[in-house]
């Protein structure tokens, strides 16, 4: 049993490392938009550390977010337990971040695709959602150049 528990702990550490290192923004918040998880991608691109955002409202921290739009999207995810998406073609970004290539890149900001995923506690209603922010700048730049 102890051995099993150890392996699980080790895997848990790996998983945490992976979430931290992912080149994707990962944030978890409750139904009131209070932030609970904020990975390194979010820290590094927003300039705000996890300790600075913990328990705070996403809308307070980022007043530029279209609140009505995001509340509707997240509301559907909480209610139905299904995922929701947003693409850079429709809405260039959720949070205005600098691009990864501030010197040689041509874009003025990071184009983002967004996935909103329900997180259910065992057998209970969905109380939290996970937002995943994907950097779509390269694809956007290429397509905008062609178009």
């Amino acid at each position, binding site marked *: 049993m102890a051995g099993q528990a150890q392996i699980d702990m080790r895997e848990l550490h790996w998983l945490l490392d992976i979430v931290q290192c992912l080149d994707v923004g990962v944030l978890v918040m409750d139904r009131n938009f209070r932030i609970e998880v904020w990975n390194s991608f979010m820290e590094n691109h927003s300039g705000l550390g996890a300790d600075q955002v913990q328990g705070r409202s996403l809308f307070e921290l980022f007043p530029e977010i279209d609140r009505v739009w995001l509340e509707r999207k997240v509301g559907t995810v909480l209610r139905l337990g299904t995922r929701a998406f947003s693409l850079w073609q429709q809405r260039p970004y959720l949070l205005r971040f600098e691009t990864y290539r501030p*010197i040689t890149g041509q874009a003025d900001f990071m184009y983002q695709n967004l996935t909103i995923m329900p997180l259910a506690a065992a057998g209970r209603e969905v109380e939290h959602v996970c937002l995943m922010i994907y950097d779509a700048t390269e694809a956007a730049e290429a397509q905008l150049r062609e178009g």
Partner: protein
Amino acid sequence: MLPLLVCDDSTMARKQLIRALPPEWPVSITQASHGEEAMTAIRQGLGQVVLLDLTMPVMDGYQVLAQVREEGHACRILVVSGDIQDEARRRVAELGALDFIRKPATPEELRETLERLGLFDHQAAAEAPPPRTEADFKVGFRDALREVSNVAMGRAAALLAEELGVFIQLPVPAVNLFEASELHMALADANRGERLSAVCQGFVGEAIAGEALLLFHDSEVADIAHLLGLRPGGDEATSEMLLDLASIIIGACLAGIAEQLDIRFSQGHPQLLGQHARSIDELIHFNGARWRKTLAVEISYALEDRAVRFDLLLLFTEASVPRLTAKIQYLME
């Protein structure tokens, strides 16, 4: 008092090293900022024990070791270097260095090494500890960033040397604040009229952001493939090889900087900016509308006995400079 000579081109490195010495070690310290100054001090008997850096302008550490041997001075030399290639260790041992300490040296490591070599006796020294007045160091930001880069590029070189099975000649990194047009000129210089390929990788961490740019000369790509044991392939095979090499060099360099400054960088995917470009303009489009100045660290790795050179540029955004300065300030305190 034992005459001790500390020779390093970086003021920060000398400061770090002198601070890391056992405080009760009774030594009188002389400093030298390159090999020629070191030789002058040694001839005056100021260097019975020498802590010697390898990568220096004017006269490097290898040349000092050779010169000391030729002139027959009885000094005991320890190399303290960021160049941690196995071959570097072997060469300095062959030239008579007593030991090799990896930069930045920790107090424990220094103490252990000095005791092992019989240069410092803790028991004897404890009786009369002479208070050492700390020399007044003024370490500039560029000097400090150059030294941080120097240690980081040494780590990258050690990995590269292992991968390619050759000795890498390390230069002193250049640190400059460039205007967009000046950076363009610096790159055109590196171009030297040859065809180029370039890999670029963005990084950001704690409000420090920038891009690492690695330039390859096309005429050297076949040599590189040969060293890696690959048969020269088409453009796709070549681009994968360049991306792999760039990942090693950029990854190790950024990891070295991040570790010293206690940051964790997020890194984007490396991008091949282009192959066989005739000019820098074909390869890189600087977004002049968005930035005016960039802090550039230029490192040029040369493979010994081969006409192969990689130019690595770490370009930090102007907005990163205050944070970088704060981080480096912290490191120096």
